[in-house]
């Protein structure tokens, strides 16, 4: 099966749509009970977050800091049984700053067809870190 046609791509699409509609519970519905989330970079939203509560805290920081303006514009989905990836543009606004950065999300699936471990990385880490930094 071509990687662009795998059923896990529907799961990833659902995750992106849930993110863009601001529905954290719908995002978590695409995950197993113990999400592990690796966010690259430096600063207040970087690090590894484990479990639903930590994921929600991370989510809340993203939403609050961007006043809900953060959106994912998916360019491409790839998936097989165990692994997937999304190439996308992340856009957001914050304190008059605008972020637009090519991003990649890589994920491992469990055997129930849910996400279990994800990595979010961006092509321009400097721009990303500057955008999220607390000082202006």
């Amino acid at each position, binding site marked *: 099966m071509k990687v*662009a046609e795998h059923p896990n791509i529907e799961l990833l699409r659902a995750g992106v749509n849930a993110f863009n509609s601001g529905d954290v519970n719908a995002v978590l519905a695409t995950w197993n009970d113990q999400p592990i989330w690796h966010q690259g970079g*430096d600063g207040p939203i970087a690090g590894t977050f484990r479990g639903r509560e930590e994921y929600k805290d991370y989510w809340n920081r993203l939403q609050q800091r961007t006043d809900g303006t953060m959106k994912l514009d998916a360019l491409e989905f*790839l998936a097989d049984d165990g*692994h997937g990836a999304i*190439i996308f543009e992340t856009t957001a606004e914050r304190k008059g700053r605008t972020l637009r950065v090519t991003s990649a999300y890589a994920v491992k699936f469990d055997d129930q067809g849910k996400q279990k471990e994800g990595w979010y990385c961006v*092509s321009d880490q400097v721009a990303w870190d500057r955008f999220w930094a607390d000082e202006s």
Partner: protein
Amino acid sequence: MSGAARAQEYVDAFGKGDLDALTEYFSDNVLWHVAGKHQLSGDYRGREALFDYFAKARELSGGSLRLEPESILASDGHIAMFMRVTGERDGKQLDVLMAEVMKVAPDGKWTEFWAVADDQESVDKFWS
């Protein structure tokens, strides 16, 4: 050859330590991002800078770095690799899973690379 097969071939060549064989995979102005806070972190632009980085990483690790792809996904425009990276340096062990993404030009050459580790802190400690 498919993007995934090409990436596997690249990993095999890397494993043999044959850096010369790797040059053909990259575009002249390839941009390579190394995450983290250690002596190799930063952006490397151009094939020459990239291979200087490869050589330095190899020197620092005494040639102990090993790449084992867990999975390689590819389309015409991108390759995503899940790479187990192990190594040893000054008695320190590295064992991380990296999520790596490459952009592929229409001619098949790789133009940009970025990655996140499952444990960035241990990567930083390894290279520090």
